[in-house]
């Protein structure tokens, strides 16, 4: 059984209609399914806004559990650009060599911790740790902070059984409030301090705005990275020939990671609110309803990708939208790409083979569509390369 197959539930609707529909907490979503339309709608912020009520462009909607506007995510141009500019350089730090060196030693150390175990539960005991520790590099905070974040569990907003959990969100908000106050009294060279020292149009960022940036950084980079890491390991477990390929030609790792991101699409969709009545694929969309930019569907569009349901680690042309497209494209992409590239190379250099023991899939229910995004838990055993 190919456990790591991630099927494309959107194919039929994408080809026949171009859209899918889902009802999310009585707030209708028209899911945009074709690559071309997803990109066009993402580009068209005038008709499809991100600057809606906080939480509304997330699917499932978070309007009932938060009031803080996530920045720059829930802003439109030109304001979006002014705020994005404040943090853009910061989020490019993963391109620096010393950042990559530190990330590499973190990841290799973690792999060494689990490689000799009889079995390891990948989601909590590997991916969550990896993601949390790596985030200390992105925020430039002490490594020990990751212990706290790991203790929160896999979801900042969601907890098992319930789709949206307000209590979990409070833990995060209280933590961030505390950290902002701490940085105000004792500035360091972390992200909080940088934001406290920043201004937009000559006005210092407010605590609420800083909180908006940080909530996004915590929430946006959590499930996505955890699913990408878990799925990547599950993939190599079932495709030893691909692991051999990376060992023999490590230089393909960049292309390989892009292809895995396309195939996994860790973020299924993000919404926009329709400003005026319009049409998508001849289908009417009404003002004040939502559209969903379905990155996961666009990434399997046969109009763009040959053999879209196959993983081809050397795919040369790969205009995937796993990190979104246009104005709001993912600020964490450099960090996420480095994590995955370093992880794949570390596995190739240390691991002979990986065995999947058992696990529970994480399936999103989106109207008539059911999409696997990863696992709730996945037990595997690593077989180490023995040094002769």
């Amino acid at each position, binding site marked *: 059984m190919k456990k790591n197959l991630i099927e494309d539930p959107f194919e039929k609707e994408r080809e026949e209609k171009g859209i899918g529909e889902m009802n999310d907490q009585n707030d209708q979503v028209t899911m945009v399914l074709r690559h*071309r339309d997803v*990109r*066009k709608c993402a*580009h068209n912020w005038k008709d499809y806004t991100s600057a809606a009520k906080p939480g509304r462009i997330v699917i499932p909607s978070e309007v009932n559990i938060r009031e803080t506007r996530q920045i720059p995510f829930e802003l439109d141009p030109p304001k979006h650009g002014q705020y994005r500019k404040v943090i853009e350089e910061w989020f*490019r730090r993963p*391109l620096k060599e010393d950042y990559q060196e530190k990330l590499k030693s973190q990841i290799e150390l973690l792999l060494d911790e689990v490689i000799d175990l009889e079995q390891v539960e990948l989601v909590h005991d590997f991916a969550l740790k990896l993601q949390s520790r790596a985030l200390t590099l992105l925020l430039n905070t002490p490594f020990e902070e990751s212990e706290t974040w790991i203790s929160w569990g896999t979801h900042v907003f969601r907890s098992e059984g319930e789709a949206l959990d307000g209590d979990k969100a409070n833990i995060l908000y209280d933590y961030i409030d505390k950290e902002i106050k701490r940085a105000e009294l004792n500035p360091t060279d972390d992200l909080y301090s940088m934001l406290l020292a920043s201004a937009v149009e000559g006005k210092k960022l407010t605590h609420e705005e800083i909180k908006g940036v940080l909530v996004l950084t915590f929430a946006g980079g959590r499930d996505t990275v955890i699913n990408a890491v878990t799925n990547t390991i599950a993939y190599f477990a079932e495709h030893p020939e691909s692991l051999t390929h990376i060992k023999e030609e490590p230089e393909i790792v*960049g*292309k390989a*990671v*892009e292809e895995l991101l396309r195939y996994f699409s860790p973020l299924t969709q993000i919404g926009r609110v329709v400003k005026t009545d319009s049409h998508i694929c001849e289908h009417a969309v009404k003002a004040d309803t939502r559209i969903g930019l379905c990155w996961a569907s666009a990434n399997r569009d046969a109009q*763009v990708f040959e053999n879209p349901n196959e993983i081809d680690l050397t*795919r*040369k*042309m*790969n*205009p*995937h*939208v796993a*990190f979104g*497209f*246009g104005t709001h*494209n993912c600020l964490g*992409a*450099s960090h996420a*790409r480095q994590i995955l590239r370093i992880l794949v190379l570390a596995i190739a250099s240390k691991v002979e083979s990986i065995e999947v023991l058992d696990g529970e899939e994480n399936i999103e229910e989106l109207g008539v569509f059911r999409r696997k995004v990863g696992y709730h838990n996945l037990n595997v055993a690593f077989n180490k390369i023995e040094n002769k």
Partner: protein
Amino acid sequence: MAKITFITNDGEKTTLEGTSGSVMSLAVENGISGIDGDCGGVCSCATCHVHVAEEDMERVGEASEIEAVMLELADDVTEFSRLSCQIEISEGIDGIVLTVAE
């Protein structure tokens, strides 16, 4: 061997020499500002967008269909736009001048 000149947003000119690989890789290896090559050259990020000098356009050639689609919605796009990860270095493009897009 080909000499390739980059003009960055601050107006600075840099000429580099390369023998193979993509123009994007050459630029990234040499720290040409404004060419980031985030996706490693698979036509997904458009952070390698350049404007080819008009007189060099014929030698560099046209964008493929997928590249053209990618460029369609890029910022600062003109009829001379190309994604530099899709331009292979060869003798045929010796002497071209590329302006990094905004």
